[in-house]
């Protein structure tokens, strides 16, 4: 089967800094892969490359069948990205935000409602403006936006950061469900224990390059 993500010697420049200096990575469809490595190793850039947000300047890069060195836009509507930033309009309510972004992606109204319910955002919170939310609640809203878009490739950058216990469990559940439904998931995380538990395998990223893979721990995934 064609891999969901295929990178070979991928180089990506942030200005004049080679954030990625030759990444090799193959991820099969439906696989959950943990990217681990120190700060500044290039994990975030790697995820942004896969989302088609950052240009791959050299090497091969194919995501969901789109050759990113030719066109990095077509892949975008098929991926969901949870970054450090929320990607939300501060002055709009939670419901407004989820409705806008999911409608932009062509999702049905029911998807948005279901996503909000899944993340515990229905009821009172739905009508609260985002700038009044706590960091964890914002994260949940971003996750709801992502869930409503039904991406085929999930790119999660530190998904557990800033969440309480139930929020973390929620993230793990979402990842498991996504993988079960056939979506591919890349997680960059420092919470190794938790992330290893949901990932099929992990890949070390150091100095803008991938280094090694560890054996799978797939028993934990339903």
């Amino acid at each position: 089967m064609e891999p969901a993500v295929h990178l070979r010697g991928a180089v990506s420049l942030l200005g004049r800094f080679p954030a990625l200096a030759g990444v090799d990575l193959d991820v099969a469809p439906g696989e959950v892969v943990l990217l681990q490595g120190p700060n500044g190793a290039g994990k975030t850039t790697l995820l942004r490359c896969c989302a088609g947000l950052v240009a791959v300047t050299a090497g091969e890069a194919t995501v969901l069948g789109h050759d990113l060195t030719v066109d990095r836009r077509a892949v975008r509507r098929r991926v969901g990205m949870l970054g450090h930033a929320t990607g939300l309009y501060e002055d709009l309510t939670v419901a407004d935000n989820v409705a806008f972004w999911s409608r932009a992606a062509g999702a049905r109204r029911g998807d948005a409602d279901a996503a909000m319910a899944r993340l515990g955002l229905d009821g009172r919170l739905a009508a609260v403006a985002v700038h009044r939310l706590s960091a964890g609640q914002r994260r949940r809203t971003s996750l709801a936006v992502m869930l409503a878009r039904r991406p085929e490739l999930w790119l999660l950058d530190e998904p557990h950061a800033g969440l309480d216990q139930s929020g973390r469990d929620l993230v793990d559940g979402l990842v498991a469900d996504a993988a079960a439904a056939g979506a591919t998931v890349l997680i960059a995380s420092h919470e190794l224990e938790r992330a290893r538990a949901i990932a099929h395998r992990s890949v070390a990223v150091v100095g803008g390059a991938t280094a090694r893979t560890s054996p799978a721990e797939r028993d934990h995934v339903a």
Partner: protein
Amino acid sequence: MNDSTASTGTRVLGSITLVGFAALLLFGLVLSPADAAQGELVRMMYVHVPTAFVAFGAFTVTVAASVAYLLRRTEWWDLVAHGSAEIGAVLLAATLVSGMLWGRPTWGVYWTWDARLTTTALLFVLVLGYLAVRRLPLDRDKRAGLAAVVGLLLLPTTIVCHYATTWWRTLHQGPTIARADPQIDGLLLFTLVLGLAVFALLYVWMMVHRFRVLYLEHRVEDLGLDTAIAERRREASGALATPRPATGPVT
């Protein structure tokens, strides 16, 4: 061989330009006659009109190169647009200064809010904005894209300038050359054409040099890049005892 942006071609071109300037000074200040209406002041025209023409030509090149950059995305067009705008800005400044110095003795004021003056000043400000975008500390490609869009926008504004000129009736001289005024003295016309030719040559000469300077700036920027990638790779291999490429999927 040599450590400059000059080549045989530019040396020849530069020599011709210098000789041209000497001739322009000779004809403009000595040989050409005083005008019946303007007196000696007509000599200002040999600087004012050619710089204006060549400046507008330079911005036309910038606009065309911006369009070409947006279509082709090659460094060449980016450098052409940039270099041409820089030279155009200098020439347009010369146009404004010579125009003011001409206006003071003829009209009694350095500046009037006449349509053509106003719109030329406006174009100057637009170009300053364009060059400000050019100096932004951004990625080269990003900056080139933004500058190309701003450069492209010089065109609609210049067209509106033109309409404003024809609609606002003012004291500015009409387009003298286009009418091919028969009263204009032969030597006077020759000097004007000489001025045009000399400033056009100057433009081409400076353009070649500016292009090369800007090209070198990019190459100097690139120099660090290979080292940076190598360093980044060393960081990767240093951190791991046994570096080897990632294996394929485990499926």
